[in-house]
């Protein structure tokens, strides 16, 4: 079943946000995804960011800069987003394993050029941004204060197939 790729957006204005910051290793002793729920981005230190704040609690989309999700291969990082309803990340670039883990779980790790990312961060300064992703049209509509700004993005056929199948296990089980 396809996940939902729209909602309120939180902006994390730093490159190289790593998976230790997304979910610290001390929580890797959990054996269910659901148990990770309270700990999303717990160790991220960023001006104006509160891991226990409402903005994060309400977020369904994360926007960030370069090399998002670097470091450990822990799929606990995409999982902690998943169980908090964050199924869409938009960034300038990703660490390979994190990006693959997102698509393997049927979620979106969208890459946009630096200029578009800057534009999104600019919108974030105007107020609450709601992002709506149209996977078929490969477009993103970002709404703030009633104004809509559109972006288009590229996605590989494989990544799209993973999202449509619901993930890599479903895709591979069918095919191999």
């Amino acid at each position, binding site marked *: 079943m396809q996940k939902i790729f729209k909602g309120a957006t939180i902006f994390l204005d730093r490159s190289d946000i790593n998976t230790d910051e997304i979910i610290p290793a001390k929580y890797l002793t959990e054996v269910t995804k659901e148990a990770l729920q309270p700990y999303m981005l717990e160790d991220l230190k960023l001006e104006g960011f509160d891991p226990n704040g409402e903005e994060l609690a309400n977020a369904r989309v994360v926007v960030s800069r370069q090399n998002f999700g670097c470091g450990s*291969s822990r799929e606990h990082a995409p999982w902690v987003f998943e169980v908090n309803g964050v199924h869409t990340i938009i960034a300038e670039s990703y660490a390979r394993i994190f990006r693959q883990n997102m698509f393997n779980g049927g979620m979106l790790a969208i890459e946009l050029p630096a200029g578009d990312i800057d534009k999104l961060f600019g919108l974030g300064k105007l107020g609450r941004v709601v992002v709506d992703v149209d996977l078929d049209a490969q477009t993103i509509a970002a709404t703030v204060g009633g104004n809509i700004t559109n972006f288009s993005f590229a996605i*590989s056929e494989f990544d799209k197939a993973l999202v449509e199948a619901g993930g890599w296990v479903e895709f591979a089980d069918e095919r191999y």
Partner: protein
Amino acid sequence: MGKTIAEKIFASHLRDEPFEGTKVLAIDRVLCHEITTPVAIADLESRGKDRVFDNTKIKAVIDHVTPSKDSKTALQAKMLRDWARRHDLKDFFDVGHNGVCHALFPEKGFIHPGFTVIMGDSHTCTHGAFGAFAAGVGTTDLEVGILKGVCAFREPATIRVNLNGQLSAGVYAKDVILFVIGQLGVNGATDRVIEFAGSVVEQMSMEARMTLCNMAIEAGGTSGICMPDRVTVDYLWPFIQDQYATPEEAVADFAKWQSDADAIYAQVLDFDVSALEPQVTFDYKPDCVKSVAELAGTAVDQVYIGTCTNGRIEDLRVAAAILKGRKIAPTVRGIVSPATPKIFSAALDEGIIQIFMEAGFCVTNPTCGACLGMSNGVLSAGEVCASTSNRNFNGRMGKGGMVHLMSPATAAATAITGVITDARSL
């Protein structure tokens, strides 16, 4: 047109290309540990697909927290143990026989040139030292690997790093890889294989090559990789002697994997490392690298020697040679974790454990423990650790703690003085 070693391995393992640019490879080794595998096991069970594609190609170890420290880690260990027994895995390593995965599996001879290797652990790139394509993956890739023996990759382009010249005494593979990461940056090799070549690599032992490849991921690399040669054959000989009449024959056979002279690279970097000084990280990213001289005098609270980067016998020998007849500073807690039982045993036989203990180190069993702040040496907020591990992220070894990455020689010297110290100055 010539091919790189990674391209040759991809071509020989291609199972499917569902879309242009997506290569689904047959996997020779699916490696498992107790942190990232249990969720895959539970998911397979919930899908009614609790099967393994080949119980000789899947290897498992309990290594991150062992012996278990609490009920949660005991459950993770039990889930892996029960699963390994249920499927009759031929190689499963539990308490008494277990060690850090990326030291243990090579030591058992499981990784050969030309292999494809995946594991739910980012430092799986270590195994590329044997001329294998070895990639860290998430739990979902691991799950499909367990069930189907395949994994999908975009074919990665290769960055060739030629390490030329001759390392000076007191400068090690760890210093080289820290320097290279400093040059590449933490995402300089994303979606790339890093091929390490040149006279310095040719002269390196397998242990040193594993240290190099181990940290390829810290530059974003999918796999590190070294050309299989006589050094590779000598290391693997006890495990391959039934397949080849002579080591020379094995060297000749493995040569088929070597990158062609006219292979195409995304980037070629040439470094003469003859003048390289010992390196150390500062700040919270592994590409924040300076020479030890620049950070000399920085106080530390703990020194940690071990891990999949530098917990091998060569590393312990280097550290012990510096510690011999000396005591560590009273302000420092020293912790050493030999990476496997075999390494621990060799260190005992060679008197290395005695040297560490007389110097004031705590010797732990083989485990990943402190490296990722899970057990056996977690830092408190505000504390600083000199560590031979591979990652210095904020809070990596414990919330609010700071890590400086360095070679075992620098770590040993730092333990003695209590401040970051160039071992050559002692």
